[in-house]
C-alpha cells in the first residue's frame, strides 16, 4: 500500500493548520528578540503553564471549556511578566548570557511546578469544534484545527494592528530600533519591554491552549518540544522578522506532518532539524533574509 498524492496533500493541510500554533510561539520568541535582542527560553514553559491554569480554572469552577482559551492566555501573560522581572529587568542589557541562562532556569522552574502540581501525568484538554469535519472532494479539514487556525489568525491580526498602527506598538518598535533615542523621546524602555512580555506571554498561552486542544491532552512533556519548535521557527523566520516567523510557523507545521507521514513518528524530528540545517546553511537570514537591523 503506497502513499498517494491525496495522503500527502492531506498531511500537509493538517500540518499547516496545526502550524499556526508554531507561528504564534515563533512570534513570541521573535517579538521578545526584536524588543531586547535576547531570547526568552522560558517562553514555551509559560505558554504550557498558562494552558494548565486555564484548564484548572474551568475544571474547578465548571465554566464552559471555551473560557480556557481566555483564562490560559491571561495566566501566561502574568507568568510572562514574572519571567521578565526575574530574568531580564534587573540584569544589565549589555550582559547577553545571564538573561539567557536565567530564562533556562525559569523554563525548568515552571516545568517542575507543573509536574508537581499534576503528579506528572497528562490531563485531557477539551477540544473545540471537534465534531465538525469539512469535506472537499478527497480532502477534509478537521474542525478543531480550523478553530486553531481561525483563532491564530485573529491573534496575529490584532498583534499586527497593535505593532504597526498604535502608538504603543510603534513605541515598542522604536525601543528595539533605537533604545537611547526612544528613552529621549519619553518612552520608558523597561515599561515597553514589560508590556512586550505580557502580550507575547498571552500569545503563547493561546498557542499552548490550542496545541493542547489539537492534541487532546496536555502534559509537561510538551514544553521542551514546543520550545525547540518555536526556536526553529524563529531561526527559519529570520531572527526578529515578524512575517518570517508566521510563514516559518506554517511551513514547519506542514513539513512536520509530511515527515510524519513519510518517515513515521520516530524519524519525524530528524527531518525537521534537517530543515533547520538547510536554512542555516543556505538562508541564514531566514525566509525573507532581512533579519534584524544591526548598527
Amino acid at each position, binding site marked *: 500500500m503506497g502513499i498517494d498524492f491525496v495522503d500527502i496533500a492531506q498531511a500537509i493541510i493538517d500540518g499547516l493548520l496545526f502550524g499556526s500554533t508554531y507561528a504564534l510561539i515563533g512570534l513570541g520568541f521573535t517579538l521578545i528578540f526584536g524588543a531586547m535582542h535576547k531570547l526568552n527560553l522560558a517562553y514555551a514553559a509559560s505558554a504550557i503553564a498558562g494552558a494548565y491554569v486555564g484548564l484548572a480554572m474551568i475544571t474547578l469552577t465548571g465554566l464552559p471549556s471555551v473560557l480556557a482559551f481566555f483564562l490560559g492566555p491571561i495566566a501566561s501573560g502574568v507568568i510572562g511578566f514574572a519571567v521578565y522581572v526575574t530574568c531580564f529587568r534587573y540584569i544589565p542589557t549589555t550582559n547577553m548570557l545571564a538573561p539567557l541562562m536565567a530564562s533556562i532556569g525559569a523554563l525548568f522552574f515552571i516545568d517542575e511546578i507543573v509536574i508537581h502540581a499534576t503528579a506528572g501525568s497528562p490531563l485531557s484538554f477539551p477540544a473545540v469544534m471537534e465534531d465538525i469535519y469539512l469535506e472537499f472532494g478527497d480532502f477534509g479539514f478537521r474542525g478543531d484545527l480550523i478553530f486553531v487556525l481561525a483563532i491564530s489568525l485573529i491573534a496575529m491580526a490584532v498583534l499586527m494592528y497593535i505593532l504597526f498602527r498604535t502608538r504603543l506598538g510603534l513605541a515598542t518598535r*522604536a525601543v528595539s530600533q533605537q533604545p537611547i533615542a526612544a528613552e529621549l523621546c519619553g518612552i520608558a524602555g523597561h515599561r515597553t519591554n514589560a508590556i512586550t512580555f505580557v502580550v507575547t506571554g498571552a500569545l503563547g498561552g493561546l498557542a499552548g491552549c490550542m496545541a493542547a486542544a489539537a492534541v487532546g491532552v496536555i502534559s509537561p512533556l510538551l514544553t521542551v518540544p514546543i520550545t525547540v519548535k518555536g526556536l526553529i521557527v524563529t531561526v527559519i523566520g529570520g531572527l526578529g522578522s515578524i512575517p518570517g516567523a508566521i510563514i516559518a510557523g506554517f511551513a514547519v507545521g506542514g513539513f512536520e506532518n509530511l515527515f510524519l507521514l513519510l518517515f513515521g513518528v520516530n524519524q519525524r524530528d530528524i527531518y525537521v532539524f534537517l530543515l533547520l540545517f538547510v536554512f542555516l546553511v543556505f538562508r541564514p537570514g531566514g525566509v525573507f533574509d532581512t533579519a534584524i537591523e544591526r548598527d
Partner: protein
Amino acid sequence: MLKLDDLSKHFDGVRAVDGLSLEVDQGEVFGLIGPNGSGKSTTVNLICGVLSATRGKVTFKGRDLHGLPPHRRLNAGISRTFQNIRLFGELTVWQNVWIARRDAPGREAGFIRNWFGSSARTREAIEETLVFADLAGRANDLAQNLAFGEQRRLELARAVAARPDLILLDEPAAGMNREEVEDLRQRILALKHDGITVLLVEHVMELVMGVTDRIAVLNFGKLIALGTPGEIQGNAAVREAYLGSPDSESA
C-alpha cells in the same frame, strides 16, 4: 533655567568634563563650542541623562535632575537631537514625530488614549511640526529612506514634537551645505521666538556666531571662556585652544 554645578564626568581616568559650572537663561540660544574631545557631547549626555555624572549636579527649572532617567527628563521639558542621526528607521516620518509627541502639561491623555488613539488635536500638531521641518510632503515615507538633510530635519522635528522648554542640539549642522545651514538658523530663531531655550553644540562657526546670544567654550572638559559671540571671537584663550599655542605642536 539650566544650571550646571561643578559637573564632572570621568571615563577610566580621562576627565571628559571637569568641574563645569555654567547657567543657561530662559529663552536664550546658548552656544557650546570647543575643539574635538573637549567634552561638549558628554555635557549634552549628562544634561539629558544618557550618562550619569561622576560629580556635580544638573539643575533644571530649580529641580535637581540627579538620578532621573532620560524619559523623565523629557517629561520635565528637555529634549535633544543626535549628532549621529538616531531616527526610528523602520517607522514613517509621521510616526517618528508621533512617538515623540507629548501633550501640553495638564492635558495629558489617559493610558488608553495615549497609547492606542490619536486625537484630531494631536494629528494637527504633528502636521504643524512637519511643516515647520519642511517634511510635510514626506510624512508617509520611512525615515530610513530620507535624504541626509531630511533626516537632520526629522531629528529636529522629533525633538520639537516633545514640546520641550529646553532643546539640546548636538551638532545639527554637521554635513550641511550653506543653504541648509541658513534654513537651520531660521528654524532655531523660530524656536527662540516660541520661547524655547536652545543649547547648541556646533562646529560650524558661521551658525554659532549668527544665532547664539551667548557662547561657552570648552577645552579638555573645562570652561575656558564665556561671553557674547563678539567677545568670544576676540578671545585669545579660545584662539589658542582651536589653533594651538605658538610654542606647542600638539593638536
